[in-house]
């Protein structure tokens, strides 16, 4: 039953949710709304398990003096000093808001800003005319950059038009084709999981 029970739960709940998207009979919408609430509750419990897991990992790092173990102390302090503050004042309290605005968001923005440098290094490595596909990528990238930057329009007024055409015609066509294939793949995978054909996620083997 340990192997069959997760499959039964997935099948029943999956079929109910799928039917609710297409049909409207009996008390199906209310049943699915209840399932949604249950999944939110389970996600919250999963967060609690995540905190326990993080604590276990970083306490082990400190105990065994693994590489950079002192950063684990910083992580543990951050979790267990912030947690009581949020529990007492709530997520919209003055201290949590101050920490979010002055610590979390600037750090997140800084990491996001690193993307600019990584784009340059990735472009330097990859935009080489090694073969036909790479050459097409290089030419398209140069045309797009010239079309998007003001200097491109200053050089020639046609660059923005070419850039727009590349984005709206071949790029859109490619993206839509990939999306159609991906969505059908997602649906087929969901059917495999619902029917119990794909069981690797249960941890019980194939």
């Amino acid at each position, binding site marked *: 039953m340990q192997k069959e029970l997760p499959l039964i739960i997935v099948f029943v709940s999956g079929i109910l949710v799928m039917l609710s998207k297409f*049909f409207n009979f009996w008390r199906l919408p209310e049943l699915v709304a209840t399932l949604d609430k249950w999944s939110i509750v389970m*996600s919250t419990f999963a*967060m609690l398990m995540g905190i326990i897991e993080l604590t276990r990992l970083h306490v082990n790092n400190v105990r065994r003096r693994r590489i950079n173990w002192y950063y684990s102390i910083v992580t543990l302090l951050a979790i267990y000093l912030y947690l009581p503050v949020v529990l007492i004042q709530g997520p919209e309290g003055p201290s949590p808001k101050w920490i979010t605005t002055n610590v979390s968001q600037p750090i997140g923005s800084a990491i996001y800003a690193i993307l600019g440098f990584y784009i340059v*290094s990735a472009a330097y490595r990859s935009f080489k005319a090694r073969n036909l596909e790479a050459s097409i990528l290089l030419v398209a990238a140069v045309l797009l950059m010239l079309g998007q930057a003001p200097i491109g329009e200053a050089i020639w007024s046609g660059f923005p038009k070419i850039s727009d055409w590349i984005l709206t015609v071949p790029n859109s066509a490619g993206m839509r084709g990939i999306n159609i294939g*991906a969505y*059908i793949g997602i649906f087929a995978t969901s059917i495999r999981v619902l029917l119990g*054909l794909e069981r690797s996620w249960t*941890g019980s083997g194939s």
Partner: protein
Amino acid sequence: MSSLYFLAAAAAKAPKPEDLTPKFWQPGMMWDSIFVLLLFLAIGIMIQRARAGLPIPPIRKLAGLDAIDEAIGRATEMGRPIHFSPGMSGFTAVTYAGLAVLSEVAKKAAQYDTRLLVTNRQALVQPVAQEVVKQAYLEAGRPDAYNPDDVRYLSDAQFSYTTAVLGLYQREKPAANILYGYWMAESLILAEAGSQIGAIQIGANTNTFQIHFFIVTMDYVLIGEEMFAAAAYMSKEPVLTGTVVGQDMFKIAIGLLIVFGTIWATVAGSSKGLVDFLLR
């Protein structure tokens, strides 16, 4: 005259055509449900063919999945670990596909006695990933080699997870980096950092806004539906292969519908009539 009066009165009371639409259907979902049934039918037919031992078309070569063996071999030779991540999304079909590949990667890593580091962004996925890896080590006959500390939940926050993985790259220096799931803005950061440490990289992403970052930075990339064929491709199981063939048959039908719609829109000057019909 009285019979005509009664006929007109009956016609006035008769239900209008739109009232004949079955009430149990959600508005505008009739054709969607028919297409879903057709997909079920295509997959069902191929599953039955596979179970009956009838020939089914094979899956074409997928370089990204073939390269997983190469990546694990390289990590084993260099004595460095493999890093695997099933992506940023929760329990979606993409994550299931990632966990199927994780199971195969873990089995091979256990067989070759190569360290496997798995990082998770979602707390909900963490216990499942642990169980998948543990089971894979058990099936490979190496339960002693399984280390629960190597399957790590790092953070739910996007860039906290990203910086934690960057730190892992610098400390552990994995020789193989497999990013298999749904990725957002962190895709380029992780892929480029993996490239800078000299890891062989295999990526799969359903996010079409980020897939190009994987293509320019990674050695092998699985695009779109290729990542969902992994379980069938790696296990070579006929029933799973049959489901992939069924989904391809449906894709061909969708392609024909697109061609038909294009011709309709070109001839009629607008596709509004067809769209209105399909949205009934």
